[in-house]
């Protein structure tokens, strides 16, 4: 049949033809404007109209088994033609897949920071997007090849932006805490940190002394290595030098490569802002001492660092130090302080290669384990979030019966376990029942942190631990319990 005064475009009509062609009893359908091309098509299907047509007419031709099917098909054509698409005319939201697209479409202008926590082998492309967009980037990912790190940091330097990381878990920018960072007051001290937990220790002690921070710029644990050459540290120092809110700078790191340390020192000497180093080394093993020196620079008194004494316990001479840490720098600091008096300490992150613990976390003797080391976080969250591995080690230690003093760190703040004492108190209560295992905890945090320093300290003390805000003080107390002193 032919209809006049009806127009639909060819796509709509092809959809109608397909829908009607699928009806039972229908073996051929053409619903189309009666153009010469369509008439030819209808002819090849044996459905050519036997009356004169014009291209403005709608041709409806159906090949059906019987009259019922035919009537149903024609009714279906009418229904399909009358159907209107229900649509708001707006796009289903298309999410941005990359940092580049995100910056481009969501934050095209103004200061912005990118955070990259994708698997390390893919992090470089996301970080490069940020640099190309003239934005600084915090790379939380680990497993980024060092040559990628160097290339990214060179490109960032040329673009006038900063790469924080890779493997950077801690930063504070203008009061915004990124990753594992504590709630500390704003103030005049800028930190450049190649060490996340080191920066947390320092910023928390400063806060307890009433001194705030302007920014904490993480640079990644490898930045001060020979290979990277302090590229981000130098840029971060320059940025803090130019920042009006920053009056003093403290550089926090694990032991740097000597040549890099010299280069950074030379660069720092040229800045107008005073820079003090809190780089750990056998000669300067103590972050707390660095904070105290900084307070001295500022003409401020050193407060009594908060602690909870724990039960009165007699020394256990001959026992082993078991340091189970979640923070790598805190583990390093403990080893640097303890080794001169204890002798060799085996570790998965040893001070000397020959002291490598390998995979045997339950080895006897003096042992310090960094549960945050990359090798122990494959396929699981950081121990500051997921305590399982460390709780297992504590339980194994009790089972071994080896005389020991247990030294732990507990790091509070954003990103960490919302109530770390909860699981630890249960484990410590179990360990101390029936044994005389003294437990010393370095509790890194502030009362402003979501977990609350005092609340956590009280809970841990109640479970029998001695608690210190200073990791160095905690380590020295553990040495005291071992019957030696530094």
């Amino acid at each position: 049949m032919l209809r006049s005064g009806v127009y639909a475009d060819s796509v709509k009509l092809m959809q109608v033809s397909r829908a009607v062609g699928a009806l039972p009893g229908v073996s051929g359908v053409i619903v189309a404007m009666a153009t010469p091309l369509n008439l030819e098509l209808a002819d090849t299907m044996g459905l050519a109209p036997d009356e004169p047509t014009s291209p403005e007419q709608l041709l409806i031709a159906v090949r059906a088994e019987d009259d019922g099917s035919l009537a149903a098909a024609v009714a279906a054509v009418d229904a399909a033609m009358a159907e209107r698409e229900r649509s708001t005319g707006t796009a289903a939201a298309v999410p941005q897949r990359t940092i580049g697209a995100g910056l481009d479409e969501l934050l095209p202008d103004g200061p912005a920071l990118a955070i990259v926590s994708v698997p390390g082998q893919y992090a470089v492309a996301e970080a490069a997007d940020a640099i190309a967009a003239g934005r600084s980037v915090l790379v939380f990912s680990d497993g980024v090849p060092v040559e990628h790190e160097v290339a990214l940091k060179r490109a960032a330097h040329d673009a006038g932006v900063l790469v924080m990381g890779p493997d950077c878990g801690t930063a504070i920018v203008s009061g915004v805490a990124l990753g594992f960072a504590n709630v500390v007051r704003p103030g005049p001290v800028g930190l450049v940190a190649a060490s996340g937990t080191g920066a947390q220790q320092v910023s928390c002690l400063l806060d307890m002394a009433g001194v705030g921070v302007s920014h904490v710029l993480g640079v990644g644990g490898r930045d001060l290595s020979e290979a990277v050459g302090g590229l981000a540290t130098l840029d971060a120092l320059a940025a803090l030098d130019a920042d009006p809110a920053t009056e003093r700078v403290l550089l926090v790191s694990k032991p740097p490569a000597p040549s890099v340390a010299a280069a950074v020192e030379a660069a720092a000497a040229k800045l107008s802002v005073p820079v003090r180093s809190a780089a750990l080394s056998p000669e300067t093993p103590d972050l707390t001492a660095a904070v105290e020196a900084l307070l001295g620079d500022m003409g401020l008194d050193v407060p009594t660092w908060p602690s909870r004494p724990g039960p009165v316990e007699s020394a256990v001479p001959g026992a082993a130090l078991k340091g189970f840490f979640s923070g790598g720098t805190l583990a390093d600091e403990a080893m640097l302080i303890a080794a001169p008096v204890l002798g060799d300490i085996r570790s998965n992150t040893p001070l000397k290669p020959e002291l490598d613990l390998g995979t045997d976390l339950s080895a006897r003797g003096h042992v310090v384990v960094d549960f945050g080391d990359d090798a122990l976080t494959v396929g699981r969250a950081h121990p500051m979030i997921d305590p399982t591995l460390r709780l297992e080690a504590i339980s194994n230690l009790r089972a071994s019966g080896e005389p020991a003093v247990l030294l732990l760190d507990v790091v509070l703040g954003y990103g960490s376990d919302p109530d770390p004492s909860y699981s630890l108190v249960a484990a410590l209560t179990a360990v101390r029942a029936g044994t005389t295992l003294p437990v010393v905890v370095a509790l890194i945090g502030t009362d402003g942190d979501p977990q609350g320093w005092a609340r956590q300290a009280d809970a841990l003390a109640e479970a029998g631990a001695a608690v210190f805000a200073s990791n160095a003080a905690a380590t020295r107390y553990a040495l005291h319990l071992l019957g030696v002193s530094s």
Partner: protein
Amino acid sequence: MSLGGLLSGPPAIVAAGVDVFSDALRAQGAEVHDVDWRPPGFGDPADLAALALDPRRASANRTAAERVLAAGSQLVDVRPAREVLDVPDRTLLHAGPPIEWTRTSGPLRGALIGACLYEGWADSEESAERMLAAGEVALDPCHHHRTVGPMAGVVSPSMWMWCLQDPVHGGRAFCSLNEGLGKVLRYGAYGPEVIDRLHWMSNVLGPMLAAAVRAPLEAGADPIDVKSILAQMLQMGDEGHNRNRAGSALTLRELAPALAEVDAPASDISAVLRFIGGNEHFFLNLGMPTAKLALDAARDIPGSTMLTVMARNGTDFGIQTAGTGDRWFTGPANTPVGLFLGDYGPDDANPDIGDSAITETYGVGGFSMAAAPAIVRFVGGSVPDALATTERMYQVTLAENPAMAIPIMGFRGAPTGIDVLKVARTGWLPQINTGMAGRVAGTGQVGAGLVQPPQECFEQALTALAEAARTA
């Protein structure tokens, strides 16, 4: 060093990866956007990193995109292929990457046979096939001769060609005249009506268009600005690949006055006007060389990861990039999904064919689907789907073409300049709108729909670009 103002106040944040930070940031009142990051769709991580870190890439891609956007397109002549193309006699050009006769698909085979008949090189289908199989007629891609051809894209010496020029970079590009829809050579049909139409086109249509194009130029008028027609049609419901209605009408409007003045019988003038007016894809063969001009302007830019060609020969899908010159990266062409004419169904459709994906390479066609929501209904999609397609394509391209504004996107420019690296990272392959040719030689068009390139060609291109980056 001010770090772009980073330290002057709380920064807004874009985050990719596990959202360990984002909740804490929101709790602090920071502005945080989490992108929907996924592992790359393909590509060796080392290759992706090599390209991401290639110091040449940013500026090379900027240069490539700038050239594409800056290129113009003027209609300067209409002439037989043998006069303008540097092609030896007894050579037929075809769409897509290079291919031997034995691997050709039905529609390309049909079109090659038809061209031999049309040129009088053979007097029957059998003799044409024999000649082609014996290599007596050489095959060469259109793209090797600054030419693009829709569907089979077969160009023979006697066919009249649109001659376009880029006034900015000086490039030239060529395309045959569009035959209309249905049983036509480019869809692989070669029956008598097809060959008769081709003869009419070379005897009547070509010379008349040539006169209509040349006369105004000789009188001092500006050449017809084809880029401007393409820009206008995007505002009128066309996307410039599968829908060219408005563009064809605008072209007829441009040509009609001069056609009316051609010294020819009124019946011929009328036939030409009727032919153009009855062919809603008439503009396609002007839009394609317009895109070709722009992309040729971006050839040979070391370090650029931008595509300069997407083309199919009915068997293989091939791409080229600005950073790898004339090298083809190919994979087996997919079969489009869509709607069928009459009794034809999916089994009748040939795999993807034609140089017309040059339109998507330029940012129109499937990339500007939002301009022509009618097209997305070929696969049962809706208007929001059309908009989403264009939104996705913004994330795989380098630039927005301000000359090609899409009204429903708030007149945002068409997503232009496909970046191989972005395609790999998002896993979103380019969206192509296309006609469907019958699988069997001689059939003609069976439908129209949507298709994507095979991932293989992008994988190869990524590897080659990464190799080039490492040795640069």
